């Protein structure tokens, strides 16, 4: 088990956002979290990354374990630099005053021991995946279109060289064709490199077609879980999240 969330309660101020959720992610898996707006999906991902408030809430009880060790006391930058988790956050959060290339370069900050050739190879892979970014390397990233910014946010997370990639609505703002292409590429990276992926999606159908397993969140609780194809055929899930 790579990641396990154990009976996690978290609060924003006095408001409880997660009421004791438990789930796990195995090495090499693609797992999706689906659920309505406000269900607690982003809260879950931000808690795993140990982001400080106000981005992430306080953990009241329960535990987050990565490779069997509790990570509740790990600093957020170490979650990335030492544990090799990465998050493409909700709302993209790219550095608009930096160029596309600078955004991607910054993501390699903690890879001090990696040879330049390896970083170059990873960059090329991002640019292969998103040729639109390659054409805009020197452009200030705030002037990118919404979809291009989303590509940069995903590319940037991959550039940290993670063992586990968390994606918060990666398809947001992408044209459908590009979304399918990105998911195909993610699947490919997953199969070739064994990259573990947790993906939060509004589009539950696409998410379940990409993932091996899924969890359904509803107002801070997990209400259903199982293999992706089973979830996709579950009548309850179908009714609530897949439009009948």
């Amino acid at each position: 088990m790579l990641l396990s969330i154990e009976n996690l309660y978290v609060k924003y101020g006095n408001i409880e956002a997660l009421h004791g959720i438990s789930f796990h992610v195995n090495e090499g898996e693609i797992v999706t979290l689906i659920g309505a707006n406000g269900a607690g999906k982003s809260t879950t991902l931000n808690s795993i990354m140990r982001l400080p408030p106000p981005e992430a809430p306080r953990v009241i009880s329960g535990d987050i374990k990565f490779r069997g060790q509790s990570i509740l006391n790990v600093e957020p930058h170490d979650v990335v630099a030492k544990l090799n988790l990465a998050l493409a956050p909700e709302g993209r959060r790219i550095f608009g005053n930096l160029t596309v290339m600078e955004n991607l370069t910054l993501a390699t900050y903690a890879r001090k021991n990696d040879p330049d050739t390896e970083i170059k190879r990873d960059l090329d892979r991002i640019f292969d995946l998103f040729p639109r970014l390659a054409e805009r390397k020197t452009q200030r990233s705030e002037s990118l279109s919404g979809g291009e910014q989303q590509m940069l946010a995903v590319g940037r997370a991959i550039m940290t060289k993670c063992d586990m990639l968390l994606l918060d609505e990666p398809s947001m703002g992408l044209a459908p064709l590009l979304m399918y292409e990105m998911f195909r590429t993610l699947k490919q990276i997953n199969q070739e490199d064994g990259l573990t992926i947790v993906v939060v999606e509004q589009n539950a159908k696409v998410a379940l077609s990409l993932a091996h397993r899924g969890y359904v969140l509803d107002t801070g609780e997990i209400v259903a879980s199982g293999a992706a194809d089973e979830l996709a055929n579950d009548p309850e899930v179908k009714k609530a999240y897949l439009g009948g």
Partner: protein
Amino acid sequence: METLLQGFLQYIINSLQWGSFYALIAVGYTLVYGVLLLINFAHGDIFMVGAYIAFFISSMLITYLGGMAGGWTLVALAVPLTMLLTACVGVTLERVAYRPLRRKGAHRLYVVITALMCGLILENGNLALLGASRKKFPEMVDTIVLSIGGASITNLKLLVIFAAVAVFLFLHWIVTKTKLGMAMRAVSFDKFAVPLMGIPLNTVIVFTFILGSGFAGLAGLLFAMSYPILEPYMGALIGWKAFIAAVVGGIGDIRGAFIGGFLLAFIEIGVASVLPSSFRDLFAFSILLVILWIKPTGLFGVAKTTKI
């Protein structure tokens, strides 16, 4: 005709020299503001401490190496040593005063008040330790007066102007070519996304204080070499002026700090050359007020987003 041109040239030279002092100090305000949104009101006093550090280092260098090494060798040693030690003072301030407040999530107002207090502590600490008597800065190099088109420029003035240009180019290189420099710009845009890149926020903040205080130390050394009388309150007025220069240039923007610094010097010395010197600051600051009135965010400032 001849004298008019001479006067004009002299005006430019003097303004460039004072603009360089202002710019070297202003950039420290701007860097810290860009990263922390904190106006580090202790910065003028860090400049003062820098001048005193330069005093002790130079005196020591002259005592121990004066016989063997030439004056410029001593200066070349004094520059990095002064910058390093002044940077330590800035980083210490960050550690003991600002970081604890930040960790507790204190409102910006309290941090600014803390900065003001730190400035007073540095001034009065100096007073308590070294007494009220002024210090005479030792002469490391002989002043050479050069003449350009009838106007005079000393080797020291040239050094000051050269230092400001070099610092500007160096900073430009830092923020565009190094990852830590890029991280400084990233922090100013979205502080919370920076740890997601595996970058410790505190490292970026400490680096910022190293740069800002280091340049204040450099300014302190150069200022003391040019005007060799040191006293504990020497950083107060020049600190305020540099802060205003940074704001007029657009606080948070490195170019703004330099443009603002030079602008202030040109206005100040320009006013003083046509009006009695008691009018100097009144007019200079009135003009700056008008600039802010027209463009409240400063010349290079943008309403939000881009800092540094």
